[in-house]
């Protein structure tokens, strides 16, 4: 069975990534270095915009306070897209 990875110290960025993986099918795994860091930053930005679009937020592509607040709210565990 999948065992939950212990949350890393920089909770915010990893929990943000977990959120986008779980609810917006963020997949950072398939890039080979050194492309990874550039490509994954843009993938991350796309997924943040997708989430902002779903919740009717301004699509800045970065973790502004509004976006973080929505992420922290109690929610359903089912994905928002590609369900």
């Amino acid at each position, binding site marked *: 069975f*999948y065992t939950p990875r212990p949350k890393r110290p920089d909770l915010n960025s990893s929990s943000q990534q977990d959120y986008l993986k779980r609810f917006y099918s963020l997949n950072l795994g398939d890039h080979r270095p050194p492309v990874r860091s550039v490509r994954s930053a843009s993938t991350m930005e796309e997924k943040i915009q997708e989430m902002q679009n*779903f919740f*009717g937020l301004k699509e800045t592509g970065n973790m502004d306070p509004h976006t973080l607040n929505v992420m922290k*709210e109690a929610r*359903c565990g089912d994905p928002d897209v590609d369900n």
Partner: protein
Amino acid sequence: FAFYPNRPKWKNHIITYTIARYTPDMKKEDVEKSVRSALKMWSDATPLKFIKINHRKADIVFSFSRRTHGDFFPFDGPGGVLAHAFMPGMGMGGDVHFDEDETWTMTLGKNWELNTYSDLLSVAAHELGHSLGLTHSRDPSAIMYPNYRHQSDAKYSLSNDDVRGIQTLYGGPNKKMETQVASKKCDLTFPQLFDAVTLIENEICFFKNRYNVFISSQIDAAYDIPAKGHKYWVVEQLKMKSRAGSIYEYGFSSRVRRVDAAVHVSEYGKTMFFVGEFYYRYDEHNRRMDPGFPRLIRNDWSGVPRRVDAAFKLQGSIFLLCGTKSYQYDFRQKQVVNVIPGKSWLGC
């Protein structure tokens, strides 16, 4: 609103559910009440009927678990994700899992230190949307919005978006069914229209075979004893209140095998029982049959046919239902004052 790919939904409109594991945070009956209320929100908007069974093979299985719990979606501890559910289908399809690491309550409320909504009704209502075939809605007023709705005061109900979504899958509530039943009751062509009639609070309740029809009207509460064969039951608020009793406790002769009708006349403290062509008079105060009974109906009930199928009291008159007619009998004038077609009681 949105659907899963290929729009999976339940083919059968009667959907079974069971609660496999409860939370220690709430009384069992409160969990069941919250789940029932959540189910009612969806059944009120569709032709769906939900039946609770005590079997894990139910279509929808509700359970409370923490962290890894047998599917590939472990929960995340207090806060964050409170529950998830699966789209309609076999096995785990339709099932609803609640995160036991939350503190579950029946009322709408915020668990401040965890900053999480933990009221079971709103979470169950959302997850049931998934169980029935809806995915997340972008409409913040919808129950299917990913973050549980902040409805601390407004009555919790489906939004238009939820209703449009679920009715796209299943259609609206069975208006047709109601008219079908209505037309069916008017098609009654039995020679004996009713088996029995009684009053339950403000409603006249007609019994025929396995049907019973409630007619509400402005009536005085009255009391009748619908009797079947040689047994009778006392019913209170439609819950069987007593074990089956024997009619012979009332003093009927052993030859009597069934009572056709009964009606209580509170002005005299008497209850009339009609058996074939005879009738008995029972004194409720002394709790025994009056002497000199049984007597022939036709000798004492002028204008009433030889046999009675059902009887009840309404606004000072006794109504005796015989065959397809009902006879309004004024027990002060001791005569029939009106004859009404039996079906008219059903609005036909």
